[in-house]
């Protein structure tokens, strides 16, 4: 198998349809062997970009370089790229073995080589005994694995995946995330992965690019994006965020005092100038909830009184919403503690988060 995949460079890749611009000029470099995810809401252009790399959608302008060579004018069947489709696109008239062997046979390998490589790939996806089965006889997860094997068996330079887990139920999806990760390590290919599920992308990727309206808004390591979102869109798309509009900012000792409307005010680090055209963003896991007065005297904290609006127990965490004022509601996510009583709807509480967790994030430009 290949030592590692190929590097990919997008240089001003643009797609315009008669009246709509599907892709603004996009330039980005993806390193050999990298697991790179494109995420964004539907219609953000991520699938169009993937189609352009695959060769199904000719870009209106720009260059796509694989290992330094421009492939824009090369048809899909000579690009040597692998692709896993959203609906798998497995051939229903062929067996599992024939599906995986399809690309190898096209490459005119000897019969022995085809059998050996296909068999080895079936071992990797743990379907060695099922080569003679029809696709319709496989479960969703098995079909998914066949799609992976079929796309990777010929050591393509780059492996594209278009929402490959979208059709699976939640448990299977998480299991397949590990599978794909392990698969990536085994075949060491460059993977470009499209999803609208930010958790999935964060769990699997070396880097993520967030797209909106045909543009990459921000790209970087998952943690970077989460901790330093470039604007409000990124902050709210990646994970949950409590976001408040700043109405006014006043200097206050070493910090500043922010008026967020409805008579609520917060402290935040920084100077007043940095607050203009910014929002306050607080992640739910930064917020603590306690009885009234529990946080009195804590330094470097924002403490606000409120009323519990609702409490939801999800696996391992408590998600509760606290009403600070008529419109202002914060969501807090707390670790679940066995046998510990928690507040109920209507309880008076104080919420608290550190000044350092009070992020100022620019609005979208």
């Amino acid at each position, binding site marked *: 198998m290949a030592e590692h995949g190929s590097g990919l460079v997008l240089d001003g890749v643009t797609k315009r349809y008669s009246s709509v611009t599907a892709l603004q000029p996009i330039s980005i470099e993806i390193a050999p062997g990298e697991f790179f995810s494109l995420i964004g809401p539907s219609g953000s252009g991520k699938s169009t970009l993937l189609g352009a790399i*695959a*060769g*199904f959608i000719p870009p209106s302008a720009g260059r796509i370089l694989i290992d330094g060579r421009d492939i824009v004018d090369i*048809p*899909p*069947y*000579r*690009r*040597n*790229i*692998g*692709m896993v*489709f959203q*609906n798998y*696109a*497995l*051939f*229903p*008239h062929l*067996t599992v073995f024939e599906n995986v062997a*399809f*690309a190898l046979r*096209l*490459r005119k390998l000897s019969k022995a080589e085809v059998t050996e490589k296909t068999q080895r790939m079936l071992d990797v996806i743990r379907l060695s005994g099922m080569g*003679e*089965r*029809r696709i*319709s*006889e496989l479960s969703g997860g098995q079909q998914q694995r066949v799609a992976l094997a*079929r*796309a990777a068996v*010929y050591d393509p330079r780059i492996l594209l995946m278009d929402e490959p887990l979208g059709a699976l139920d939640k448990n299977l999806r998480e299991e397949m995330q590990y599978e794909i990760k392990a698969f990536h390590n085994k075949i060491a290919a460059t993977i470009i992965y499209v999803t609208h599920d930010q958790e999935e992308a964060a769990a699997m990727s070396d880097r993520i690019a967030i797209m909106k309206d045909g543009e990459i808004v921000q790209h970087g390591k998952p943690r970077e994006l989460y901790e330093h979102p470039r604007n409000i869109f990124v902050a709210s798309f990646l994970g949950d965020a409590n976001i408040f509009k700043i109405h006014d900012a006043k200097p206050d000792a070493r910090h500043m005092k922010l008026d967020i409307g409805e008579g609520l005010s917060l402290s935040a680090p920084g100077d007043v100038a940095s607050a203009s055209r910014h929002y306050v963003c607080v992640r739910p896991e930064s917020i603590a909830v306690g009885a009234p007065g529990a946080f009195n005297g804590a330094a470097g904290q924002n403490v606000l009184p409120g009323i519990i609006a609702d409490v939801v127990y999800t696996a391992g965490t408590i998600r509760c919403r606290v009403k600070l004022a008529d419109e202002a509601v914060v969501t807090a996510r707390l670790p679940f503690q066995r046998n510990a009583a928690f507040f109920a709807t209507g309880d008076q509480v104080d919420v608290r988060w550190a000044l350092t967790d009070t992020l100022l994030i620019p609005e979208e430009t």
Partner: protein
Amino acid sequence: MLKGANTGTPATMRKVSWSVARLYRWMLLAPALFLAAFFVFPIIRVVLRSFSDPAWGLQNYERIMAGGPYLQVLLATIQTAATVTALCLLLAYPVAYVMSRLSGSLLQIAAACVIIPLWTSAVIRSYAWMVVFQRKGILNEALIGAGVLDDAIRFLPGSFAVHVGMVHIMLPFMILPLLANMRAIDRSLLRAAEIMGANPLVAFAKVYFPLSMPGVSAGVALVFMMSLGFFITPALLGGPQHLMAAVLIEQQANVILDWGLASSLATVLLVVTGAMYVVYMRLTGNATGNLKGAL
């Protein structure tokens, strides 16, 4: 209690749906009686007559098998049906392929072009072909006018005219099953083949064509079986030069009044058509049978 409620609901539902299904079955009674009285019974009469007219025995079948004109007509009928089916497939496949990729009003216009001819009776359309093929018809006039011919060709009655007329009338019955099948073929399968290295031609041969086979076999079976018993077009355009089984049977029954021979010819045609149907069911049945067999 919860358990009881759980098992209770599906059981009653099953009971209800079963009794509804039983009720629906009685709705088949009227058409079944109609078919029995006006279709099955006459066919049994015909088959019996082939063995009993003018006397009990196999003499009618012996006359057919003796190698005279009767067997020849039967063989020619099968050959014509096969040729018409092949020509229909060749013409219909690209049409259905293009139609399967259309959408909106373009598709509706194309579908109308295929279906509207079905609203016109085959008699009228066959007469229209007579106008085209006449000695002083449009085709001859055009060919002479263009200088291709010095003298008019005698198309009527003849084999060429029968083939053209039959292909024209059978074409929708080939296009429609193909179209239904092709519209259901997932286009992303072709993309998958392409990204794996198949150029468009190879992708067609290895993916699209095999997947269109159910449509092909349905269309072929439909057109071939309809062509075997086709009467009006061969009767009008073929004449004695291109006699087909249905026309021969009509002559035996209505002109020569040899009802025994007519019945035995009809029986042979029925058996051949039935055999074709069995073969078709076997072939397509195997295609799905393989799915289960592979387990």
